[in-house]
């Protein structure tokens, strides 16, 4: 093992060893949230979907909003980490693993919300037994399954070298089962020139694949809305709009995770202000695109003055005024202002901007799903307000909170299993780099 790897392993090994009390405390709190979500889910299964806010009109509520949101984070993670890997940017090294983890963990959580939304669990397998290729739902099922396999493969490929390093590092004080797991997952990788070459080639292929798949799969998800003749959904720009919005939210989450891991593991030496500014610039560009797409979408709908679109836009500007402002004004302007002016580009302010991005993008999804369903073309016979107007119940909120708790828990567990900063990436010598020996030179803030 090279000296640099040893130095890094020595530094990161304590992160992988026995969890601290604080770790258990946070994990316990998340577990409580998760348990509450499980209780809510059981309650929903026992009493039926009547315990949710969903009714005849609004058949998709917070569950679908969360599904889109988490899937967006996942695809964003894939696009960001894939692109950073292929572009070989030097500053990617300490943060690329976070992107990879976002990809897989969000992808495992997102589709669960679909299952919660389905009223008849017993018929769920019909999607696989009786698929109709014409149905966008079938496209989505196929696409998500393909994506899960691709992302897991990508994550594994990026972990192999680190597993091998952890297997070989004698100073790691972890239980025997953990060592055995590293040995098994390292797959007898010894870093021979042939292995290095093959692994690098495989990583490049899968990195390119996950970018393409992420764009296609999220477009498919957008087309579920886009091909539906509903006011607010039937739009040709929904595919690219969804992809841009997803990468925008994912970049926000990446910054938040950078801030958290930097604080928790004291990684200031590795994740510097430069990283925040660089990812922040990505956020700025994506924010501008997101704002442009949003404006373009609403402008054409408003100008067209199709009756139902007009009603929907009125609805958005009256009943959903604040949500609309948060999603489409604050969510664009505040992060852009923070990143546009040099004096505001501090680590904390950029992170605050990223949090705002995340919140606003969740509301953006909510405004895509709910108000449209509250504006149907044909009224039902008994159109009492409680049947038309949607608001999530404690059951939906508890399951939503459980989803976030699972995300946090999996990120915590992942950080206990594998260094959050990829050692293999840090020690990798890119083809473009002309250096004789690998020496870690943390970027100065």
């Amino acid at each position, binding site marked *: 093992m090279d000296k640099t790897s040893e130095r890094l392993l020595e530094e990161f090994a304590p992160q992988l060893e026995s969890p601290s009390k604080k770790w258990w405390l946070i994990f316990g709190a998340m577990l409580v949230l998760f348990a509450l979500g499980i209780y809510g889910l059981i309650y929903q299964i026992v009493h039926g979907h009547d315990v949710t806010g969903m009714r005849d009109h609004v058949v998709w509520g917070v569950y679908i909003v969360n599904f889109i949101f988490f899937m967006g984070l996942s695809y964003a993670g894939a696009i960001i980490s894939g692109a950073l890997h292929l572009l070989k940017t030097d500053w990617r090294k300490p943060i690329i693993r976070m992107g990879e983890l976002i990809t897989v963990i969000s992808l495992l959580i997102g589709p669960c919300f679909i299952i919660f939304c389905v009223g008849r669990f017993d018929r769920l397998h019909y999607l696989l037994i009786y698929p109709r290729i014409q149905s966008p739902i079938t496209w989505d099922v196929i696409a998500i399954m393909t994506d899960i396999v691709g992302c897991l493969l990508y994550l594994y*490929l990026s972990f192999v070298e680190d597993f091998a390093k952890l297997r070989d590092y004698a100073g790691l004080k972890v239980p025997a089962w953990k060592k055995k797991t590293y040995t098994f997952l390292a797959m007898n990788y010894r870093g021979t020139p042939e292995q290095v070459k*093959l692994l690098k080639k*495989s990583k490049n292929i899968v990195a390119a*694949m996950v970018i393409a798949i992420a764009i296609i799969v999220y477009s498919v998800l957008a087309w579920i809305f886009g091909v539906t003749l509903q006011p607010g959904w039937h739009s040709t720009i929904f595919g690219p709009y969804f992809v841009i919005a997803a990468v925008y939210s994912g970049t926000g989450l990446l910054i938040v995770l950078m801030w958290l891991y930097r604080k928790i593991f004291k990684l200031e030496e590795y994740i510097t202000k430069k990283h925040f500014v660089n990812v922040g610039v990505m956020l700025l560009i994506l924010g501008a695109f997101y704002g442009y797409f949003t404006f373009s979408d609403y402008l054409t709908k408003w100008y067209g003055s199709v009756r139902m679109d007009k009603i929907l836009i009125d609805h958005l500007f009256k009943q959903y005024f604040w949500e609309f402002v948060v999603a489409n004004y604050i969510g664009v302007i505040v992060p852009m202002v923070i990143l546009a002016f040099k004096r505001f580009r501090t680590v904390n302010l950029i992170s605050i901007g990223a949090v705002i991005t995340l919140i606003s993008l969740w509301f953006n999804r909510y405004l895509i799903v709910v108000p449209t369903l509250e504006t149907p073309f044909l009224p039902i016979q008994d159109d009492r307000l409680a049947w038309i107007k949607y608001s999530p119940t404690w059951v939906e909120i508890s399951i939503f909170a459980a989803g976030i708790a699972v995300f946090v828990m999996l990120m915590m567990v992942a950080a206990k299993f594998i260094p959050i900063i990829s050692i293999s990436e840090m020690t990798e010598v890119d083809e473009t780099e002309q250096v004789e020996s690998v020496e870690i030179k943390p970027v100065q803030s």
Partner: protein
Amino acid sequence: MRVIKLILLSISVILFSFSLQAQNDVPEKKAPDLTFVVKKLVDGSFELKSRLSLFENRIDFPVSGAKVDYTIGSDSLLIIDGNTTDKNGYAIAFLKPGVKIPRNKDGVITANAVFAGSELYESASTEAIFTETKIVIRCEMVDTIKTTKIEAYKINSDGTESPLSGEAVIVSIQRMFSRLPIGEVTLDEEGKGSLEFPINLPGDSIGNLNVVAYIAEHEIYGNVESATIAQWGVPKQQLLVTHRALWTQIAPMWMIVSLTILLIGVWAHYIYVVIQLIIIKKAKKATVN
């Protein structure tokens, strides 16, 4: 101290003057525009339709909730209960067939629409002057030719009818949203005229067509119409379920091909990478052995 008193006095005077001005600010009444149309309908009744609106900045704003009264005649008045304008500014009243309508010695009818005014609007009135007419429409086969025959008469002051000669009557088919004109009949000295009916016009499920003959916005005769049903159309069944291309048993070929190419492309790469992983594993074994 004196200066302070002076300032306070000045402020009091200004405030008092504002208060007086506010009391004098009585909103000025606006002058609305009232349009009025009388139309004799198919069943012989009269529709009296007026619209009250306000033009501001070149935009027409309908005035709703305003009461409009109608009167007919000048010597003896027929008063029709007023109607309140709807959200589009329209107030509509009907005069049933058979009601004796006051008219002058030349048979001319004068109808008035009156808006008495309100707190916000000035009063407005307008009149419609016309001679009552009657159109008779018949659809008959003349030597195997489908023909629409029109007769029109004007009603004299004593209630008698005399032929309406030299005038043009438009013949049309009533469609869902508007009328489809099929020709114009110019009346002869006896007030009669005919028109060859077009073939191949789509009708309802049994081929019925609603044929309407009318005179519109005539300076003497105003608006009058008459209608009849003719089974001369081509029967058309309404397609209740619109056929959508994707709702077929089998997906379109382009979709199957695209999806297959995509999936094979992606999964082939996956399999290739898995094979690479197996080679990586074996490569080590070879080195060790």
